[in-house]
């Protein structure tokens, strides 16, 4: 019996193997869900590349990089999609990425971009998200002085948590420790990841949660609920820029480059806002969807250069840990 | 013929020595003070206790190295002689081998022994549904069916009342001893010995002696037994 089954299977598999080149893209979990950008990007890119685009979901952004490091040069991946600016320096240090040689048009991205290894495909501002009725502080200091409660993510296990750490660092530098000490009594708890934190907030465990300025857009557009807002802070907001890079050992360098370029075209960019709930890097042809958050003024953007972000991480973590352990 | 050759048994601080020949057939009572080593002796013969020295032979064959299940021996303990989760018929049927599904012929044999011990029609019951006397009968039925030539009874009827116990002893004497089997029966009660056992072995003071004619032993007990018998 087994032999009869094997034959048709081989016939089915053969054409895919023989004719169509395959592009393997490692990405984070939520990118490749049925409601994420994955299916749209896959269909649109396959329509023009004559290839088979295969997403491999590998946890979150940090897990993505650690997976690539585990696999080393023998990785199956051609492209890594979904690292963020807190990780790009470490990613570059691995030597596993190849220059992309692209200079895409990115009118929405508020900072200049000249990284030779990585191409951004979306971005966002970290922000505290709260109910519209809650009195909004305008600075970290005001938040620290208030009775407002917040839930944040752990910088040792989550990217938003790391983002907040770098946010306070970028805004306050040497005073970061004092800010954290001030915030200590506002922090209800520190969760391992965004999912736990956001759930806790929705359950009413805290007045606000560390998330993104675009988070309320989900509630407006998908749930027709305008009851959530993101607090705007005078210090500015730290950015998270999500990028894609070509794996140096790829056997499909041209296809990989085409894919990176495709990610900044309108076909991919117009899908980003309502599937990934982040800002696209290039304005979609129809503009941002109705009800979607407006980008903050360009001078509100805070971002440490990748090398510096990597360098300050460990001392900043120590400051954070000491301040909150008191 | 059961031969105990320079047998030395040790359990913890307790030691027992035996040199004896027991001719086949009939019931041999094993008497002696409590803690004197009667059960220890049966354990060694059944293969649960390895001797420190010496040999146990049956018809000249050394039993050392034979696991309990492969010895020509059936043993009944003071309690726990039936598996509570199996039916009476299944328990008895285990004498024929480790299968629960019996052939028609085997089932017939099980029914026959059940009738012999007075348990006709109770084959489908579980042990928990039987009285104490009936449980003893079921266990005897299994011993009967197993057809092994040497039977060790480690006071399996101790928990029964006098009338019931006598009934069981008669059953042992009438059915088990019938086919020339040798039955070693531990007993606390001289009356039991007198009732069914022609011969008696004495286990006392770390030694096994006998077998002797039961009537003689009871009429003129050796010193070791005197105190125990309360004379």
């Amino acid at each position, binding site marked *: 019996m087994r032999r009869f089954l094997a034959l048709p299977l081989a016939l089915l598999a053969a054409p895919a193997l023989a004719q169509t080149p395959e592009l393997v893209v490692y990405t984070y979990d939520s990118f490749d869900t049925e409601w994420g950008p994955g299916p749209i990007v896959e269909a649109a890119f396959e329509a023009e590349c004559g290839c088979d685009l295969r997403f491999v979901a590998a946890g979150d952004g940090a897990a993505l990089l650690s997976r690539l490091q585990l696999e080393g040069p023998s990785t199956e991946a051609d492209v890594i999609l979904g690292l963020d600016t807190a990780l790009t320096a470490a990613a570059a240090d691995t030597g596993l990425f190849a220059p992309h040689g692209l200079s895409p048009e990115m009118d929405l991205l508020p900072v200049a971009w000249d990284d030779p290894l990585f191409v951004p495909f979306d971005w966002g501002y970290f922000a505290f998200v709260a109910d519209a009725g809650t009195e909004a502080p305008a600075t970290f200091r005001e938040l620290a002085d208030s009775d407002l409660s917040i839930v944040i993510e*752990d910088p040792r296990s989550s990217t938003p948590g790391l983002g907040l750490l770098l946010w306070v660092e970028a805004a306050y530098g040497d005073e970061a420790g004092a800010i954290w000490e001030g915030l200590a009594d506002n*922090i209800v*708890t520190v969760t*391992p990841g965004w999912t736990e934190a*956001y759930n*806790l907030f929705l359950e009413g465990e805290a007045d606000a949660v560390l998330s993104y300025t675009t988070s309320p857009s989900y509630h407006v557009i*998908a749930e027709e609920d305008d009851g959530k807002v993101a607090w705007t802070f005078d210090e500015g907001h730290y950015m998270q820029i999500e990028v894609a890079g070509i794996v140096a050992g790829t056997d499909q360098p041209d296809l990989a480059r085409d894919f990176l370029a495709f990610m900044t075209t309108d076909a991919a960019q117009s899908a980003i806002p309502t599937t990934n709930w982040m800002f696209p890097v290039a304005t979609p042809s129809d503009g941002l969807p109705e009800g979607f958050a407006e980008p903050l003024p360009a001078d509100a953007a805070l971002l440490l250069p990748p090398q510096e972000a990597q360098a300050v991480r460990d001392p900043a973590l120590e400051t954070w840990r000491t301040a909150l352990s008191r | 013929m059961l031969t105990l050759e320079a047998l030395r048994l040790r359990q913890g601080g307790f030691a027992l020595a035996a040199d004896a020949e027991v001719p086949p057939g009939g019931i041999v009572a094993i008497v002696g003070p409590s803690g004197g080593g009667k059960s220890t002796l049966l354990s060694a013969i059944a293969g*649960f206790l390895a001797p420190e020295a010496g040999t146990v032979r049956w018809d000249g064959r050394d039993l050392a190295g034979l696991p309990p299940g492969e010895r020509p021996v059936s043993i009944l303990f003071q309690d726990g002689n039936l598996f509570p989760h199996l039916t009476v018929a299944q328990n008895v049927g285990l004498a024929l081998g*480790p299968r629960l599904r019996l052939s028609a012929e085997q089932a017939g044999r099980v029914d026959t022994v059940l009738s012999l011990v007075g348990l006709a029609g109770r084959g489908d019951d579980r*042990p928990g549904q039987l009285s104490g006397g009936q449980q003893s009968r079921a266990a005897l039925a299994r011993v009967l069916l197993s057809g092994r030539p040497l039977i060790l009874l480690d006071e399996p009827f101790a928990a029964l009342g006098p009338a019931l116990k006598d009934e069981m002893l008669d059953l042992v004497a009438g059915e088990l001893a019938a086919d020339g089997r040798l039955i070693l029966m531990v007993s606390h009660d001289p009356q039991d010995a007198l009732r069914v056992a022609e011969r008696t072995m004495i286990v006392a003071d770390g030694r096994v002696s006998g077998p002797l004619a039961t009537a003689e032993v009871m009429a003129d007990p050796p010193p070791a037994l005197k105190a125990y018998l309360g004379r």
Partner: protein
Amino acid sequence: MAHRAQPLRLPGPPRVPGAVAAALVAGLVLGPLAAVALRAGGGFAPGPADWAALRFTVTQAAVSAGLSVLLAVPVARALARRRFPGRAALVTLLGAPFLLPVIVAVLGLLAVFGRGGILNSALGLAGVDPVSIYGFRGVVLAHVFFNLPLATRLILQGWLAIPAERFRLAASLNAPVGRLLEAPMLRAVVPGTLLLIFLLCLTSFAVALTLGGGPRATTVELAIYQALRFDFAPGRAAALALVQVALCLAGTLLALKIALPSAFGGGLDRRVQRWDARGPLWRAVDAGVIGAAALFLLAPLAMVVARGAPGLADLPPSIWAAALRSLAVALVSAALTVALALALALRGGRLATVAGTLPLAVSALVLGTGLFLIVRPVVSPLDVALPVTVLVNALMSVPFATAALVPAVASAEAAHGRLATSLGLTGWPRLRLVLLPRLRRPLGFAAGLAAALSMGDLGVIALFAGERQETLPLAMYRLMGAYRMEAAAGAGLLLLALTLALFWIFDRGGRVGADA
């Protein structure tokens, strides 16, 4: 009494499979750890932050385990000596928290004990200051919530293993059941239970972090997570994982030393009747204990149901495929768990106990990473995602199944081993005719637990999962990651229902025919 000491190695239940199972379990636990360590190729000395994390981890695990067992004893006692309608259903339901994915259980717990939860709303109405669940207290509360059911079940098994005849005897002598029967039973059962829960709490990650309130509540597992995910320091991760294994071994040996085997002997499977604790006061105490435990454990579950019900309509169609996939994984891994645990229990002894607890000590992330490193040179991890999930889930459930089976095998052997041996029942026939029938109840319990745990476990699949081969918990987690909390709550409810159903079917199957 010859059977008290048996210097002879008698032919008994099969022992070889136990050695194979022990080798398999040890290999699966230590192999991946070694793979991670080898990948690192360097040493690592823990820093002060690691020691602080270790201190916190051990302290919270010890307190959580102690409290869980302390509370479980009266609950198990009350359940053991009372019969009331719905008791069987209650016993099953009480197990639910243990079987749920952490995030679902934590959200249920918060809905009751959180800042906006029922308790604080009630306190607010009464004009009392709100109670905070966060911090050391919250970690312990959550761990007790998770582990009280497990402790109760394991201790209840101990109670149920005391034969009816012993209670009858105690009643006839008007002897104190507590000192005569229950204390020795607890002495045999409690150390193992304590150890199991201590180890469970030792590798807790999400609970400790979510409710811990801040970096003071840093566990070793978080340090491992950080080392592997952010620092890419496999050496550090392996060293920390080794510390966990060392703690596990030390704890296991200690528990072995403390525990005394109970020797109640066999009975005739009579229905247990209790003559003690008949007074109205005792009745009220037991009712109160059962009521309080039910409220503590079931109120959060009721909230999971309430939150999830509206989301059921929102579930994406793909959730059903994920649910089927999870069911298949659960069934296969339960079979594997029971086979491994049974083999270990039949062999018994130190080897079985150590091998049976080892999987608890291992960090899930290190295990996943190590397996990934081992598997990858041979076959694409994506192709073996489900088999690896089955294997790991089975491995993770082995300790619980072993905990249920080892004492059961020991007491079945103590009660019936002599008779079986005298009848020449050894090896396979002994297993089939004597042991398996005597083990039905713990086997059903073990299979149910293994299936349910596998159902609710995210496990290592994250590192292996690709494309859309997700399991139900992963699907739920991904829904949450995409803001779809309502659908995720629906998926959580579905998961709760399937998990309980699986557990109930197996557990029930083990009890049919046996008095429960």
